C-alpha cells in the first residue's frame, strides 16, 4: 500500500509530484508508440514476420500502460480534488492517452497487414511509406514534448508538418491507383499498401489533435487545425 503522502510535504508539492510522474509515464508511452510505428513499417519493408508478430503481441503493453495512466489520473482527481488548470491538464492527459492507444493500434494494423500479404512480394519497393512514418513519428515526438512543457508555440508549429504527410499520402495513393489501373492483379497488394499509408496519415492527424489540446490547455482557445488540402 503506497502512503497517501510523503511526510510533511505540502499539498501543492504532492500534486505537482504526482502530475510529473504521470507526465513521465505519458512520455514513456509516447516513445513506445513511436518505436512501434517505425518497427511496424520496417518489418513490412524487411518482410520480417517474426517482428510483426512481436509488435502485434506487444500492443497489449501499450493498452496496459494506457489504463495505468488513466487509473493514476483518476486517483489524483479523487484524492486531491484538483481544480482550474490542474484539473484541465489531467483531463487533457486522459485525452492524449486515448490518442496514443489508437496510434498504437495503427502500428499493430500495419504489422497485421505484413502478415496478410504473407509470402507474396510487395508490388513495389517502399520509399514514401517509410518517409511518412518518419515524419509522423517526428511530429508525435515534438507534440508530446510541447504538451508536457505547455509550449503552445511549438504546439502550433507541429501540425504544419501534417501537410507534408498528407502530400506523401496523395503521392502514394496516386501511384498505387496507377498500378491498379494498369494491372488488376496488383489490386490486392496495392490495397494493402494503401491501408498502411492510410494508417500513417491517420496517425499524423491524431498528433494534430494532441497539439490542439495543448493549445487549448494553455490559452483556452478551441482550435480545429485543418490541413491546407481542399476536400474535393
Amino acid at each position, binding site marked *: 500500500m503506497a502512503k497517501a*503522502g510523503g511526510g510533511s510535504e505540502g499539498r501543492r508539492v504532492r500534486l505537482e509530484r504526482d502530475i510529473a510522474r504521470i507526465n513521465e*509515464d505519458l512520455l514513456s508511452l509516447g516513445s*513506445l508508440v513511436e518505436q512501434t510505428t517505425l518497427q511496424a513499417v520496417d518489418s513490412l519493408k524487411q518482410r520480417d514476420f517474426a517482428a510483426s508478430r512481436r509488435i502485434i503481441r*506487444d500492443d497489449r503493453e501499450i493498452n496496459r*500502460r494506457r489504463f495505468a495512466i488513466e487509473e493514476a489520473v483518476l*486517483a489524483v482527481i479523487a*484524492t486531491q480534488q484538483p481544480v482550474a488548470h490542474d484539473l484541465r491538464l489531467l483531463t487533457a492527459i486522459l485525452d492524449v492517452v486515448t490518442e496514443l492507444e489508437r496510434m498504437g493500434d495503427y502500428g499493430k494494423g500495419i504489422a497485421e497487414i505484413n502478415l496478410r500479404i504473407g509470402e507474396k512480394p510487395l508490388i513495389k519497393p517502399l520509399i514514401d511509406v517509410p518517409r511518412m512514418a518518419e515524419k509522423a513519428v517526428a511530429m508525435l515526438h515534438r507534440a508530446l514534448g510541447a504538451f508536457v512543457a505547455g509550449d503552445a508555440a511549438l504546439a502550433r508549429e507541429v501540425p504544419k508538418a501534417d501537410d507534408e504527410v498528407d502530400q506523401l499520402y496523395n503521392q502514394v495513393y496516386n501511384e498505387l491507383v496507377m498500378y491498379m489501373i494498369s494491372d488488376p492483379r496488383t489490386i490486392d497488394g496495392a490495397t494493402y499498401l494503401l491501408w498502411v499509408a492510410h494508417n500513417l496519415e491517420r496517425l499524423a492527424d491524431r498528433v494534430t489533435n494532441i497539439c490542439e489540446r495543448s493549445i487549448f490547455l494553455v490559452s483556452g482557445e478551441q482550435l480545429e487545425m485543418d490541413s491546407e488540402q481542399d476536400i474535393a
Partner: protein
Amino acid sequence: MRVPVNRSESANAASPTPQTKIQVKDLAVAYGSFRAVAEVNLEIPETAITAIIGPSGCGKSTLLRTFNRMTDLVAGARVTGEVTLDGADIYAPTVDVVDVRRRVGMVFQRPNPFPKSIFDNVAYGPRLYGVSRRAALAEIVEHSLRKAALWDEVRDKLHTSAPALSGGQQQRLCIARALAVEPEVILMDEPCSALDPIATLKIEDLMRSLAVTYTIVIVTHNMQQAARVSDITAMMMLGEDRKTGTIIEVGDTKSIFTGPKDKRTEDYVTGRFG
C-alpha cells in the same frame, strides 16, 4: 524491444507491509439496551492515517472512543469484543486505563484549550506525570508546539491566554497538548469541522507530517477530507435494523474513492445519500 519499468509498480513493491497498531475484533458497544455499534472488525495500520467515514449517527464517534476507553466515561456503556494495542487487549482487567489514554490521545471536534496560558496547556500533561523542572518543561513545550506546527506563531506569547488564540491555532494547541505526553496513536473526532478552510488545510498538512511518526485515526463526515488525507478508509453505516452501526467496507483510500466494492459505499461517497 526494451520497455521501461512502470515506476509506480516498483515503488509499491519496495514498501513493506505495515504492522497493525490497533486491532478491533467483534466489537460491540451498547448503551443500556440500545446497541450503538456491533460486529466491528478493523485493523488500524501503524504510522498511517485511517479515516472512518459514514452518515451522521451511524456510530463513528462511538467506535473511535473505544480505541482509548473513553466509552468508560459514559454511564451504562458496555463494550464487548476486543480492542488490542500492539497485540494487548486494552479492556483487560489489569490494564492501566490512564496509560492507555496517554498512549492513545484524542483531539475533539471543538478545540478545548484549558483556561490557562499556552505554556500551561501543553505542560499540563507532563506536570501530571511528575515533570517539574522548568527547563525540562520548557523543552517539552517547545518540542510539542513545533511538532504541532504552532511554535512560530506563539513562541513570543507562551504565557498569554490560550482561549485567545484563533480556532485553528487552538486546535493545533490541543494537538500539541496530546503530543506532549508522547502518545503512539492520535484519535481525531471531526477535528476540522469547527474550522475555516485555510485552518483545515493546515491541520491536514499537519496530520500528514505527524503520520510519519504516529498512528492517526480520524472520524470525518467530510469525504473530500478523507480522500485527501487518509491512506485507508473505512465506511461505516447503520445495518439492516437501521439502529446499529457497523463497518461495511475498508480499503485503501484510492480504491474507495475511485472504485468502491460495496454499492452502499459508492452511493455514500457520490452523495446519493447521507
